[in-house]
C-alpha cells in the first residue's frame, strides 16, 4: 500500500502541476481538498481523469462515497486497490 500511496502522490504532483511540492512531502493522511494540500474542484475532476487513464477506474458521478475516497492519499490508495481487485 505504501508503494501505491507514493505512486498516487507522484500522479497528483504531475497531473496537477504542483511544482512547489515534492511527492514525498505529501502526508498520506493529509486532507487533499480545501484544508491541507488545498486542492479544488477542478483538481478533483483532473484527478478523476488521471485515475481513469492510469488505473482504468471510471467515476461516473460524485457521491458522498466518492468524496470519502478522495479525502486523503491513504483513502485514495485503498479505493484504487479495491477497484483493481
Amino acid at each position: 500500500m505504501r508503494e501505491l500511496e507514493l505512486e498516487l502522490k507522484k500522479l497528483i504532483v504531475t497531473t496537477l502541476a504542483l511544482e512547489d511540492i515534492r511527492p514525498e512531502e505529501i502526508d498520506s493522511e493529509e486532507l487533499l481538498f480545501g484544508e491541507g494540500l488545498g486542492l479544488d474542484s477542478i483538481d478533483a475532476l483532473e484527478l478523476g481523469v488521471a485515475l481513469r487513464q492510469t488505473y482504468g477506474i471510471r467515476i461516473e458521478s460524485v457521491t458522498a462515497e466518492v468524496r470519502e475516497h478522495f479525502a486523503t492519499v491513504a483513502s485514495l490508495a485503498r479505493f484504487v486497490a479495491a477497484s483493481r481487485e
Partner: protein
Amino acid sequence: MNETATELTRSRTTAPEARLRFQVTDWMAASPERHGRAAWLEWAGAPAQPAADAAAPVPASLRRRLRQAGLLAAEALFGLASLTGQPRLVFCSRHGEFQRNLNLLRQLVAEEPLSPTDFSLSVHNAIAGLISIASGNRAGHTAIAAGRESFQAGLLEAAVLVKAAPDQAVVLVHYDEPLPTPFEPFRDPAETPIGLALLLKAAGSGPAVTMTLEPAREEKAGTEPTELPSLAFLRFLLGGAGELSLPGRLRTWRWRHAA
C-alpha cells in the same frame, strides 16, 4: 467597407471629442527573454532608472494553472510596482492561450477524456477571471479579442474607462503567444510570446498620452505589422518619441506624448 460605414467612421473619428487622454503611471512587460524593468528599458534604448521595489511573485497556485501566454500576463500584472487598491482590469489577446485549445482538439481526435483544467480555462475571459481571483480584484474585468488590433482595442477600452470614471485606475494587460504548429499558415511574423501590463489613470505621474482614431488611408489599411503592436507601444512609451501611428483595417490608431 460600404459607403455608409465609411462615412460613419470618418465622421466619428474626425470629431474633436474622439481624442482620449490618459497617464501611464506604471508598466511592466514579460517575455521568455526579458524579465524586469531594467531589461525592457535597455531593449527600448531608454535610460536606466533606479530599481523599483521588488515585484510580487506570481503565486504558485495560479502559476500551475496557466500556460505560457497566461503566465506572461500574470508576471506583467503582478510585476506592477504600484499595484494597489482595486483597479478595473482590461485583458486583451489575439489568440489567448491557444495551446490549451489545441490540446483539447487533440484529445477529441484521440477520443481521450478532455482535461477539465484545459476545458474550464479555454474561454477567452478565463485568464482574466483566474488572475483577478488570484490578485483579489473585485473591480470587474473585460476580455477583448480583436484580431491583429487586439492590443489597440484593449487600450481603447482602457482609455474609455479612464475617461468615464476618472477616479478609477485601470490596468490593461495584453498577452499573446505565436500560434502553435500546425497553425503556422495563420501566424504573423511579428507574433511573439508577450505579457504587457499598463496602469492607466486620468492624472498622476508618468507619461501622458493622447489617443485618436483616424480613417484608414487606403494604401496602408490592414498592413501586416512588422512589430507586435503592444511592443511598438511600449517602445513609444519608453522612448519618448513624438508619436506612434499603427494602420488598422478600418482606421489608423495614433498616440502622441502629451504635456
